């Protein structure tokens, strides 16, 4: 029986008399299952032969389709028991602003634009050092059973509580201590995420005058759009976005001529200079009115996001590239990979966070989106469906990284201390890893995209390189350098938007928190508070960014694990909340739905945290690294790739700090989980506990539940619209 019918009054027979249609459905779903099974079998069995990337693509698509059709429907109907006769907060509290009944497809777009960015593009690229298979399995299985479940369930519970934020829900449903821990964790994790994202941009733009030219121009372009919308033609968003995108493409093309323009000297910036530029930019962007920079940049970024994903999917199918990566490399078992240290378990599962399980989504799935949902059943397509789409982005990124020659991949992704920075030393280093590449190969690859490619860590350049291969293959035309900078541009655009928005959200959180003790500080229009809170947030991530850039061992190598673990610890908090709520609502029978991903996530993050804090292997444990460096210093020697005694001091300082942060994050999560365990025991004893869920109010509106409205739903909507008109 279909329970997701949209019409509260005429929920007629779900299956209906249409027998041929159900046979067709069975045939289609059988075909999807067969395609999926064949793709997985090929991926599992092919070793040492040429494997097409399309097997990965279609294994993913078939798995997503089946998971969406069956598992998400089970969660919606059996576990959460979505109720379309119940008015959503958007309907009850409609104010045309944050509470606003929104078309499900439009809201899907908004939600997707808010959750997806550079994260799913970067993690899979780094994880490709262990081969394509571990990443593929984790991205697909992870999203189906963990990531998409988290997003959907958190969105549902927040929707039943008028769009309360994750922190608020933890405080009210688990306890004050857990609530405070969640608040601190959310803030700290956001700072780390911003710093690491900014580090990706810095690494992509350093010594790249073309990149700096194109990205730099996005600022005047966004300003122009902002003034256009404010003064010239208010509100014409589509029109100005088309103009903005055209200017953006010109900026990328123009970047190819920086040398002719005589700007290459001025725009060849070091890592350190870029950090200062980013920090200054971040501060100014966060205190300017949003209409000037943030809003128009967001339009550009959203447009590019959707455009590039479509382009990448089409490009992949047309190019049908062969995977150059191995299914599983030796680094998976030795744990000695140059991109990030550690074995497959647990480190693949934290390196790929976004795309499989991303705690940050819980902040968006609680708060903004649930206040706009028209019908409860729509959390399935928006929450679960939105995350599947992000997962697809991650799979595309993994493929892009895996079609690159592995010698080039490792030359790009090993830290400068290891590769030595020249084609000769890099080739020697990569040959030492067991891959064959000559200095001439590296020079040719660099010439093809008109950039240096040695030790361009951070994932973005590797993805850009892979995409330039795919697009050149798919669309022809010898435009490799254009595609490379196109890819760099959109990644930088996503990240700068995330940094702008994140700084502002961080500022509001800080003002709100300090406002508890000093009331006036919470006034977001009061300039001294707004400016000082912005400065504090920018300095916090700017400091971490500075540390990352100056790290002799490579900032990505050192900070990315912290980022991944932090993001998934946030997921642990969200899944803990979801599990507790299952027990409190008396749904213990289905607590495994958020419970199993929670346990898996806790095992992964706690193992990773433990290794990062207590491992005596200096390549993995932060404190082991610090003490090994300290011993070297005391013996009057250099340590590892350090070139000066100052480098050694830097390693000691950075590693100690990362270790402390790592331990602190893990402890915060343990505090929350412990609080949750107490609540769960109470709930089991009592067979459920009162929650802050808002009481049911009968819904009056009618809207379809899924991407495509059924015939019955269309009819119901038509009837309802007619009755609305009649009553006016």
């Amino acid at each position, binding site marked *: 029986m279909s329970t997701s019918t949209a019409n509260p009054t005429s929920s007629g027979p779900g299956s209906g008399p249409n027998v041929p249609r159900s046979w067709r459905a069975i045939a289609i779903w059988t075909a999807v299952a067969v395609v999926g099974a064949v793709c997985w079998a090929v991926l599992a069995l092919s070793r040492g032969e040429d494997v097409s990337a399309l097997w990965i693509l279609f294994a993913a698509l078939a798995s997503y389709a089946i998971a969406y059709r069956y598992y998400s429907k089970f969660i919606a109907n059996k576990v959460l028991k979505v109720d379309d006769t119940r008015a959503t907060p958007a309907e009850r509290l409609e104010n045309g602003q944050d509470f606003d009944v929104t078309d499900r497809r439009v809201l899907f777009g908004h939600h997707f634009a808010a959750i997806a960015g550079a994260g799913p593009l970067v993690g899979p690229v780094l994880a490709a050092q262990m081969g394509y298979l571990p990443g593929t399995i984790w991205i697909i299985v992870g999203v189906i059973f963990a990531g998409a479940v988290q997003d959907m369930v958190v969105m549902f519970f927040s929707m039943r509580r008028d769009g309360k934020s994750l922190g608020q829900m933890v405080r009210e449903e688990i306890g004050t201590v857990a609530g405070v821990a969640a608040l601190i964790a959310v803030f700290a994790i956001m700072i780390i995420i911003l710093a690491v994202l900014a580090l990706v941009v810095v690494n992509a733009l350093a010594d790249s005058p073309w990149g700096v030219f194109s990205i730099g121009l996005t600022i005047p372009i966004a300003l122009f759009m902002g003034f256009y919308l404010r003064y010239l033609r208010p509100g014409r968003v589509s029109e100005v976005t088309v103009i903005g995108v055209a200017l953006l493409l010109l900026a990328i093309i123009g970047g190819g001529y920086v040398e002719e323009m005589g700007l290459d000297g001025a725009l060849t910036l070091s890592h350190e200079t870029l950090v200062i530029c980013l920090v200054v930019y971040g501060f100014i962007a966060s205190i300017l009115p949003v209409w000037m920079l943030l809003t128009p940049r967001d339009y550009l970024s959203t447009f590019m996001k959707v455009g590039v994903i479509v382009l990448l999917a089409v490009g992949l199918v047309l190019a049908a590239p062969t995977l150059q990566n191995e299914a599983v490399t030796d680094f998976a078992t030795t744990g000695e990979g140059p991109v990030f240290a550690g074995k497959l378990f647990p480190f693949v599962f934290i390196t790929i966070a976004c795309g499989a399980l991303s705690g*940050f989504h819980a902040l968006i799935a609680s708060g903004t989106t649930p206040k706009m949902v028209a019908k409860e059943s729509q959390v399935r397509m928006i929450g679960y469906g939105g995350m599947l789409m992000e997962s697809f982005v991650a799979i595309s990124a993994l493929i892009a990284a895996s079609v690159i020659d592995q010698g080039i991949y490792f030359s790009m992704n090993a830290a400068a201390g290891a590769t030595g920075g020249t084609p000769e030393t890099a080739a020697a280093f990569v040959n030492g890893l067991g891959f064959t590449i000559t200095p001439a190969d590296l020079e040719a690859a660099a010439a093809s995209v008109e950039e240096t490619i040695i030790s361009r860590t951070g994932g973005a350049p590797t993805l850009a390189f892979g995409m330039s291969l795919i697009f050149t293959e798919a669309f022809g035309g010898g435009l490799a350098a254009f595609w490379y900078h196109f890819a760099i541009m959109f990644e930088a655009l996503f990240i700068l938007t995330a940094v702008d928005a994140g700084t502002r959200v961080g500022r509001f959180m800080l003002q709100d928190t300090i406002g508890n003790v000093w009331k006036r500080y919470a006034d977001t229009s009061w300039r001294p508070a707004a400016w000082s809170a912005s400065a504090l947030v920018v300095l916090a991530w700017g400091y971490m960014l500075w540390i990352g850039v100056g790290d002799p061992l490579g900032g990505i190598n050192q900070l990315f694990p912290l980022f991944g673990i932090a993001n998934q610890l946030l997921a642990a908090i969200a899944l803990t909340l979801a599990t507790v709520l299952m027990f409190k609502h008396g749904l213990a029978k289905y607590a495994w739905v958020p419970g199993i991903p929670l346990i898996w996530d806790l095992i992964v993050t706690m193992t990773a945290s433990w290794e990062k804090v207590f491992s005596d292997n200096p390549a993995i444990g932060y404190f082991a690294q610090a003490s090994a460096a300290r011993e070297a210093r005391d013996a009057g020697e250099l340590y590892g790739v350090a070139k000066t005694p100052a480098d050694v001091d830097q390693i000691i300082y950075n590693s100690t700090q990362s270790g402390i942060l790592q331990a602190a994050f893990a402890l915060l999560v343990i505090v929350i989980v412990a609080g949750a365990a107490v609540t769960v025991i109470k709930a089991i004893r009592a067979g459920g506990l009162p929650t802050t869920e808002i009481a049911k109010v009968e819904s009056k509106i009618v809207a379809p539940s899924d991407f495509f409205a059924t015939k019955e739903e269309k009819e119901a909507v038509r009837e309802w619209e007619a009755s609305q008109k009649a009553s006016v």
Partner: protein
Amino acid sequence: MSVLADRLSDRFSGAWRLLRQATGEAKWDEYVARCERDGAEPMSRRAFERHRADEKEHNPQARCC
């Protein structure tokens, strides 16, 4: 033939409406329609968009990674 043309134009106007909703431009259309229904004089587009920008100023939305 004309049935097909009708259906195509239906599809097109539907897609256009969705796009305008996605960009937020539809808010203005809705506002004007509401004013018409209530017989109120709508404010200028400029003033309306300014209200919307002010509202965004105080409700920042996070963008994920």
